[in-house]
Each structure stands twice: as C-alpha cells, then as structure tokens.
C-alpha cells in the first residue's frame, strides 16, 4: 500500500501544478504525460502481467475516440458518460476479439493485433458515415455546453488526471491480487498455469478487456479535447509502439515502471522535438534508444535499479 500511495501522491502533485500556476503550456505537457502514463499502464496489464505482446493496442484508443466523438456529436451526450461508454465499448470489443485471437501465442498473437488495428483503420477510412479518411470535426456548439472551449479543455485535463489515477490504482490492485498471480503464471508458462488450475482463457480475456477499457476512455478524452478525429491519428501504429516503448523503458510487469517509462519518454521526445538539431531525426534516435534498451536493459529502468540496489525491491512494485 505504501508504494501505491507514493505513486498516487506523485501523480496528484504533477497533476496539480498546472492547476495552481494556470500555465497553459505546462497543462498541455502534463496532459500528454498523464495520457502516456495511463496508456502505458493499461498496456502493461496484458503485455507486462500476462505476457501477450499486443502490438496494435492503439486500436482500442481509436475505437473509444470514435465512439465518444459520435455520441457527443450526434446525440449531444455529455463527455463523462460518453467516456465511460467508450471505455466499456472498447473493453467489450477486446473481450470478443480476445476470445478468438488470444488462442494464438507469441509472435502470431502480435501479428494478429497489428492486423486488427490495420483492418479497423481501413474500415473506418472507407466508412463515409463516420467521416471516412477526412474524419469528423466537432460542431462549434458542442463546447458551449461546457461553458466554452477553454472550460472544455480544463475538464478534459481533470478527466485525464482522474483516469490516470484510476489506472494506476487498478494496476496496483491487479498486481497484488489472485487474478494478478494467475496472469503472471500465464506469462511465465501458460501450460504450467493451466495444469495448476488457472482458467487461462478466462483470465487472458479479462486481462485483455481490462487493458482495453482505459485506452478507450483516454481516446474519448483526447479526441473530445482535440475537436476532431480521423483514422490516421486514431489508429496510428506508431502510437502503439510508443506504448510498448514506454513499458519496456520503465520496466514491464511492474506498476512503477510504465509510469517512469512514460515520463522519461515524454521528456526525451520533448527534448528531441524542441532541439533544432534532433527535431528531424527524432524517429531515428528513438529507434537507437529502443534498441539500446532491448539489448542492454531488457528489464527497463526499474529492473536496472532493482538489480543495482536490492534494498529498493521492497518499495518498488
């Protein structure tokens, strides 16, 4: 519990700074950091705890984004119920999809998830009812229900903070639960897990649904704030990879790892984009960094620190 309160405390502090300073630029930065943390923690449930490499995880963010966007635009729904609906819908899609594709193991599962993301993207791009390739833009009037665009943006910020805190709490409790123990048994050896009595297909599917729930909500918030949604940004495979990158950088299978990974990644990326010298090369440099992590720090920052300072093991989950 102690380590959880530290993590939540940290989140609240980070989240409160822009509220106190009313610094808009800072708010945007923190918004992105929070989003990254929440996405990385979500992915960690299926990738880090369960050991299934979901390469196209961004599909749930995109689906959530579209569901909420259409609900708000066409039916005048408030963002909060729209966000919850979007999350539940993403989770439902993951559950049904999981029943099928979670029978695949290892690389086959990874390829299938890429396939799912690309298929959904192609489908939406060709559906004129949801705006096709150009996507959809909010009617100006949408934000007036929230007291104008500025208020809507602040509301998005609060929602993102709340969702991020929720994700971290859920991750922590999953990790500490019997459910989590079952997931980790699956990660280590699925055949052993099933003979030990773990209902592997049920557990995997639930983990997949849970790991899709929050990205659906995050997509809803992001595109609500953004004011427009289009397939290329909703289902961008690179974002999927960014999520994996953050989990790996911080240390997969831990609660603290994805959080640290997300913060560090956002900082690196921010630095690379701002710096004149690196701006154009930031993708190539991200590639080199990712390679270095995979080769030399496979258990991420947390794993590295825990190996070097065993005393920290008790405190870092």
């Amino acid at each position, binding site marked *: 519990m102690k380590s959880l309160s530290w993590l939540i405390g940290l989140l609240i502090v980070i989240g409160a700074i822009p509220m106190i300073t009313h610094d808009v630029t800072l708010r945007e930065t923190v918004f992105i950091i929070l989003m990254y943390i929440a996405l990385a923690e979500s992915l960690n449930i299926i990738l880090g705890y369960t050991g299934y490499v979901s390469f196209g995880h961004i599909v749930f963010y995109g689906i959530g984004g579209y569901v909420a966007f259409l609900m708000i635009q066409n039916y005048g729904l408030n963002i909060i119920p729209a966000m919850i609906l979007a999350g539940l819908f993403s989770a439902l899609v993951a559950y049904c999809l999981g029943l099928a594709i979670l029978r695949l193991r290892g690389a086959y599962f990874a390829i299938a998830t890429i396939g799912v993301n690309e298929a959904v993207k192609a489908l939406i791009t060709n559906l004129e009812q949801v705006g096709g390739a150009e996507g959809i833009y909010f009617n100006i009037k949408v934000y007036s229900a929230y007291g104008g665009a500025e208020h809507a943006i602040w509301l998005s910020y609060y929602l993102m903070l709340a969702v991020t805190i929720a994700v971290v709490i859920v991750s922590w409790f999953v990790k500490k639960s*019997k459910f989590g*123990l*079952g997931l*980790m048994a699956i990660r280590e050896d699925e*055949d052993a897990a099933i*003979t*030990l*009595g773990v209902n592997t297909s049920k557990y995997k599917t639930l983990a997949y649904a849970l790991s899709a729930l929050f990205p659906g909500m995050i997509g809803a918030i992001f595109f609500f704030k953004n004011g427009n949604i289009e397939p290329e940004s909703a289902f961008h495979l690179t974002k999927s990879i960014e999520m994996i990158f953050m989990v790996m950088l911080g240390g997969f299978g831990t609660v603290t790892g994805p959080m640290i990974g997300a913060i560090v990644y956002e900082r690196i990326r921010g630095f690379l984009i701002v710096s004149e010298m690196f701006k154009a090369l930031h993708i190539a440099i991200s590639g080199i960094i990712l390679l270095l992590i995979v080769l030399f720090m496979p258990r991420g920052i947390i794993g590295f620190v825990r190996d070097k300072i065993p005393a920290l093991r008790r405190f870092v989950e």
Partner: protein
Amino acid sequence: MILKVENITKRFGGLVAVNNVSFEVNEKEILGIIGPNGAGKTTLFNVISGIYKPEKGKVIFDGKDITGLPPFKIARLGIARTHQIVKPLNELTVKENVMVGACFGREYLDLDSAEKVAEDVLKFVGLYEKADLLAGKLNVPEKKRLELARALASKPKLILLDEVLAGLNPVEVMEMVEVIKKIRESGVTILMIEHLMHAIMQISDRIIVLDYGQKIAEGKPEDVANDPKVIEAYLGDPELVLKLTKR
C-alpha cells in the same frame, strides 16, 4: 478406488501413443508406471490431466467422468501433477510459484491462506530457505522439489509424478523418495512414472508396464520384474533386471 482409466486410446496422426489402456488406482496407494522411452507414459498422464483428449475411452476420478474436461477443471477437482521437464515460473519467487498451486487448486484459496499453505509445503519439501528467491535461480534438483511443492499446495487427492527422480544424484534420490513416502502417509494417492528401476520397485505398491502404448503387465513389483514379457519388452536384458530388483 480413486481413479479408473477405461480403454483409453490416444493417437497422433498415424501413431497410436496409448492403445486401449485400462487400470485402476486405489485410494492411498502408490502405483508405478514403467516402460521404455516412447511407451506412452507421459501421454497417458497428459490424457488424465486433460491436456489431450483421448479418441476413445474414459477417465473416472472420484466417481466422476472427467474425460475431456479442461486441465484447470481437473486440477480443481483434485488431480495435481509434476512435469518431466520442469516448468518453473521463472520470474516469480519460489513462494509465489507454490502459491499459484494453492490459489487455483482444489481448495481455491485466497492469497493470504495460500501464502500460509505455501510456507508449510515449502518446509515439507525442504525449500523454505529459498522461498524468496526467483524460481529461475534454482538448480535442477531444487526445481524438481518446486514442481512437487506446487502440486502438493493444491491439496490434491491424487498426484501424478512424472520422473521426479530423473537427473538426481543418489543422495538426492534418497531424499526425494523419503518425501514421496511422506506424501503417501499424509493420505494422498500417488501415480508415478519412473525410469529408475530400483527406486520405483522399492516404493510402489503395484506397478503397470506400458510398451508401445499398450499395457503388457500389472501387479506387485517383484511379479512384474520377473514377468518374461516385461523383461523382453522393457530391457531385453534379464540379468540387468535381476540386478536391479535385488537391490
């Protein structure tokens, strides 16, 4: 009688790995299964524990037909097993490994009770000192004990041991044999596959012999060992059998 295997047949393509095998296991006995490599022993275990569905036949456990049930359900009914090639959950601690068995086994315990059970079981198999080590760091004999501990933690009525003695040195074999005897004393029925003849002959109440997927003999260890059919099929070297059974 706790387990009844009736006319089990399991094929892989053209190969009949288990051919019409039937036998019964009585409560609290140790039944040994021997046979040359490829005789179908592990396949038989995989059928009993639900990993393979047999083409023909039934497995009755505790009066219930469990044929074709998924492995996790069979585990929860009270059949636990160890694997010939150990399957430790490497990145979990030794204690967590055992807790998995306790949590999802017959008693389906919550985490706290599972932890207590895990500690008891680890003491029982002599791994308590290593409880907080990652399972991947154990050596092979320790991993074998861990397999056993995990299976025991599920509080099974029947435990299937697949070559738990293989790869151990003579002292370790002795220790493991003692542990197995203690398990039987605690009231658990044991069905075990073993290649180490002298050990299984000494420890088993009864023995069945498989060859090319078929049961070719069944009976008391000394009877089986002297059965010419067994000698021919199993070793092809009667002197070696004599040597082994005398010990």
